[in-house]
Every structure is written in structure tokens, then in C-alpha cells.
């Protein structure tokens, strides 16, 4: 791609120094985001997807957290090198973020108008009255009915879906170039989730911002992403465009994830379950971190950690045995057991 990268994350490592030991929440993450595109980041709890986004925003609490190594280049500026003051100018202005739980992200004692206006005044140097007018405008854009009235209300007076709309209005109030959305629809009902995803897609088209969508839901990923990074145990283990990922997953973990969810349009008697659970970040195994659950793991997998390697143009995978998976897929066999209680 000849387009200029908006964000380039290189070898990012964010560790937490706790009493029990060093938690390597993010341990060497690389990806890039181009202007106007949506990067989906998918993984299960504890894989480091949220800490990655908090690192970009420099919102990792320190101590105990610390960005240990790596670069976060945003428009050719390394965010890790900026002072707190410079970072404050970028946060909320060039890069905004929305979170999973809109109730805890909004201040319960201020009206939503005050909260949106605060963000506007902070970055745009306008008077309060003008900021309020813009707040109403933003609420209208995110589809909140009766915005003039709603700006005077408090968060508890709104439903979950409405609160998430308010969060989006606040995040977009300064025309960011990158919106980081951390599980924005996980706390919402399906019909409300559909509303919010549609809103985000239409706003993205209208304003041309890039989105980093963090979620555990492969359905949401398929719906909104252009490219996808699959994370496991603090690392990106597969990275490619969304169509290729779903058509030809090359990492045994991605393959397992896709087969462990029931499909609406296909009936299977049993699901293929990935055995075991995610290893504790205090106690990652040697070699490939997926080796405790991978049915294809053998000698080398237990000793040396594979790199994230570009095996086909535009398709990166971190696995020693991806060719083996290829053969199994061609034979139409499964790699995960779907039987037995011990599953």
C-alpha cells in the first residue's frame, strides 16, 4: 500500500510490575493503521488487546504499568517519546477512545452537555456557549432524539445505548483521526449493538477517521474491520485483511476460535472446543505461548517462540506449524476434538 500510515506500532511491550511478579500484558506487538480504515483487534480476556490501546493513549497506570519498549508512531511522531503535556494535546483531539461500559466512563454528577462541552473547550479554544451549541450538534449527529433537551440531562437518565451514543459524540467532538473503540457494544443488547455498529460505520464514512476496534466477538470483527490482528497471550499471532482471515485462517488458534462458535446458517452436532484455558501471564510457557492448548504442537514449539512472519503477501502468522494446519484443512479434517467430556 502506498498510503501513508496513520499509526505504526512496533514491538510494543507494556509490563506490569506486581507483587507476584512481572505481568507481560503486551509483549511485542506490531501493527499499523492506515487513514480511514478499521483495524479489528480480536482476542480473549487477558490477551493484551485493551492494554495495547491504553498504551497508545498513554492511559496505562504507572506504576505498576510501564511501556517497556517499542514505538508508537502516530503521523511520524513517536508517542512514547512525548511529554505528558504534548500527549494531552493529542489525546481526545487527534486520538479518541470509547470504552465498554458507558456508565462508568461518564461522570454521574455532570450533565452530558457539560461533559461534551468540556472536551470541546479543552481542545478548540471556544467559549462555553459555543461549546454547548457544538455539543447539541454532536448529539444530533449520533442520532440522539431531542438533543437540546438531552444536553441538560444526567447520565443515569439515559439508557445504555444512548450513553454509548453520548460517548461517541464526545469522542468525535474534536474530529479525531483515530478512534479507539474498546468493546463498545459488549455491554449492549443485540438490537442496540446493531444500532451502534451502524452508527460507527456511517460516521467513519462521513468523517474519514480510522477506527481501532477491539472486541472478543468475531461477528463484530467480520462486520466492521478492513484488517484484523488476532491476539493471544500478549502477542499478535495472525494479521491480515478480514476476508482472508475468515476464509483462510492460518494459525491453529484462529482456526479454533472460528470453529468453536456456533453458526446461524449451519448446523453442527458438536462444537470443536479448544482445550484448556489461556495461561496466566505470570506463568507463560516457553516457546510458543499457545503450545499448552495446541493439538499440533511438537518439539520446536516448546522451545523457540516463532516470529510473526509474512507467509503469503499481506498475511502474517506466528506459528511453526501453519503448513501442517494447511494440509489438515485440505484433507477436510478437524484438529480439535469435538467429543468427550474432557473436550
Amino acid at each position, binding site marked *: 500500500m502506498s498510503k501513508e500510515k496513520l499509526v505504526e506500532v512496533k514491538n510494543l511491550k507494556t509490563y506490569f510490575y506486581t507483587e507476584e511478579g512481572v505481568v507481560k500484558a503486551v509483549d511485542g506487538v506490531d501493527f499499523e493503521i492506515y487513514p480511514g480504515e478499521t483495524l479489528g483487534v480480536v482476542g480473549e480476556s487477558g490477551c493484551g488487546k485493551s492494554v495495547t490501546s491504553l498504551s497508545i493513549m498513554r492511559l496505562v497506570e504507572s506504576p505498576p504499568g510501564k511501556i517497556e519498549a517499542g514505538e508508537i508512531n502516530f503521523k511520524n511522531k513517536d508517542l512514547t517519546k512525548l511529554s505528558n503535556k504534548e500527549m494531552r494535546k493529542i489525546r481526545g483531539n487527534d486520538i479518541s477512545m470509547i470504552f465498554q461500559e458507558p456508565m462508568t466512563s461518564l461522570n454521574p454528577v455532570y450533565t452530558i452537555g457539560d461533559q461534551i462541552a468540556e472536551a470541546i473547550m479543552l481542545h478548540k479554544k471556544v467559549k462555553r456557549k459555543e461549546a454547548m451549541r457544538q455539543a447539541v450538534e454532536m448529539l444530533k449527529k449520533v442520532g440522539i432524539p431531542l438533543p437540546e433537551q438531552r444536553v441538560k440531562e444526567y447520565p443515569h437518565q439515559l439508557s445504555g445505548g444512548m450513553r454509548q451514543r453520548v460517548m461517541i459524540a464526545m469522542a468525535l467532538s474534536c474530529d479525531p483521526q483515530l478512534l479507539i473503540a474498546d468493546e463498545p457494544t459488549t455491554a449492549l443488547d443485540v438490537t442496540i*449493538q446493531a*444500532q451502534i455498529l451502524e452508527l460507527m460505520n456511517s460516521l467513519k464514512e462521513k468523517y474519514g477517521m480510522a477506527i481501532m476496534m477491539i472486541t472478543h466477538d468475531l461477528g463484530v470483527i*467480520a462486520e466492521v474491520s478492513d484488517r484484523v490482528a488476532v491476539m493471544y497471550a500478549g502477542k499478535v499471532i495472525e494479521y491480515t485483511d478480514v476476508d482472508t482471515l475468515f476464509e483462510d485462517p492460518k494459525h491453529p488458534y484462529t482456526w479454533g476460535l472460528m470453529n468453536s462458535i*456456533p453458526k*446461524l446458517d449451519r448446523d453442527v452436532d*458438536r462444537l470443536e472446543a*479448544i482445550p484448556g*484455558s*489461556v495461561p496466566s501471564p505470570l506463568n507463560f510457557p516457553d516457546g510458543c505461548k499457545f503450545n499448552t492448548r495446541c493439538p499440533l504442537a511438537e518439539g520446536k514449539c516448546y522451545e523457540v517462540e516463532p516470529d510473526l512472519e509474512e507467509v503469503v503477501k499481506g498475511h502474517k502468522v506466528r506459528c511453526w506449524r501453519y503448513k501442517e494446519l494447511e494440509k489438515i484443512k485440505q484433507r477436510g479434517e478437524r484438529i480439535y476434538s469435538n467429543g468427550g467430556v474432557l*473436550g
Partner: protein
Amino acid sequence: MAEKLLEVNNLKKYFPVKAGIIKRTVAHVKAVDDISFYVNEGETLGLVGESGCGKSTTGRTILRLLEATAGEVLFEGRDVMALNKSQLREIRRDMQIIFQDPYASLNPRMTVADIVGEPLDIHKLAKNKKDRNNKVKEILENVGLGAEYMNRYPHEFSGGQRQRIGVARALAVDPKLIIADEPVSALDVSVQAQVVNLMQDLQKEFGLTYLFIAHDLSVVKHISDRVAVMYLGKIVELADKRELFKNPIHPYTQSLLSAIPEADPKKKKDRIILKGDVPSPVDPPSGCRFHTRCPKAFDKCPIIEPEFKDYGNGHYAACHLLEE
């Protein structure tokens, strides 16, 4: 013809809303408002709906963990609502529940052996300590946990393992019916499949009947034989799962199915996006409760409540459009 194991007729559960100094009842939350269904022996009935639709309240009211406001619950033909305390305890041997949150539903101060053994004690199913131990061991093995876990505490387990303990506890008394209230929604995707498979294995092995309550339609479709869809305290549609997912006839079910993001980027669905939020169950809309959000509502809908009727082959729905 399969026997009905559980039959629910016109079940209602209202929660009073109290206000003022003397806590006068000013209104009612109509969490469950006149629903009827049955579950056949050995089958799985899925109960789906969004938050606040009353699906969990339904499960709890059937077990009398909550007392019903009105209606009838028949378990093997016996009226559960009429039972006294000791009869109720006896019948709960046959009806068990698995909860959503595997972190909150296990006592952190009890070992796994005691958590699973407690129902055995309550129902006096173990002859002595050794027998109890053996039974606990056997139950744990059934859910895929080895005997070495017996003396550990819940915090030492992962979410998936805890849910296995929750399943083991329900299984301990050899029940006929298990009400599973969102048993996999708190679990990671890769672990959900483990628990779903486990529940299917156990059903086959012990001939269990499930009432499977969940908001995730794809999981419900996978595990259920028939599915009931709830909206604001009412069942709006109930049918065989294949029929329901292939040919949904209620507008709410249609939009619900179209709203699910599918893990297939090639598929662009025609989405029916509902406007607005679910109204409050304190003062639910008149007539058909879905009329405020229904894309197909017409003059009759806000006035008359549609009847829940069989539209052929056990495909039930409540919608005026179907009567035309």
C-alpha cells in the same frame, strides 16, 4: 409422543415498586406477564430475549426461588406452586439450576468437594463420609474434573472450570430438569464451546431436560430443540429451532435475527435496525408491547393485545399481522 416434564401456564411475576415514607406500592414491574409453555422430557427448550425481558425471572419463578404472582407450574403433573416447604425441597432434587456468573455463584470459603457434596447432604443421598467422597469424585469426573481438584477452593479455578463445578453441583442430586441461566455468557469464546459440549454430553448420558436461558441466539440455536423468544415479559414466538431460525414470523424475532453480527465478512445481511430502546416494564406499552419499535405496526397494534396462537406445526406467535 414425548411426555411433558414441565408445564407453565399463564405465569406472572410482578415486582412492586415502592415509594414514599410508608413504602406504599405505587406501581409494578411486570417482569413476566402471562406466559405459557411446556418442556418435553429429554428436550432442550431455549429461552431467548434481551436484558430485562424476564427470561431469568421465568427460570427463578419456576423453581420458586421467587414466588409467582399468578399462574401455574406443573412438574411431572404436580403443581409446584401448591407445595409446602418440605415437598418443595423434595421436588428440587429433580429441578436444579446453573447460574451465569461462575465467580459469584460458588462460595469462596468452601472446597469443591463441599460445594458439590452439599446437595448430597441436604437431600441425604450419601450413606456415610466415604460414600459421599466417592459420589463427589464420580460427579466431578463426569464434568471433566479430576479427583485431585476436590480439596481446592473456587479461586484456584478458571472461569470454565468453575462453570464445570456449577454443573457438577446441579448434577449431584441426579435431577431430571436443569434450568441453565446464561451458563456460558461469562466465559471466553474458546471455553464456551467446552461447556456447551459438556452440557450436551451430560444430557445424552443422563437423559436430562434443559431450560436453556440465554441472550446469545447462536448458542441457543446450537443447543436447543425448540426456542421461545421473549420481549418485555411476554413470549412473542415459539417454534422448533430450525423453523424459528429459517422462518421467523414475528417482526421482533425477524429483527433480532437480522441484528446478530455473523462471523462471515462476505455476507452482507439485510438488517432490520430497530429504533429506540426496550420500553420500561413498569409501564409497558398498551396493546402489543412491541408496537413502539415494530417496523410493521398498524392501527390495531397499540390498542389490542395479539393472541399467542399456533400457526401450524407448533409454531406459536403473538402478532396481529399473522391474523390478517
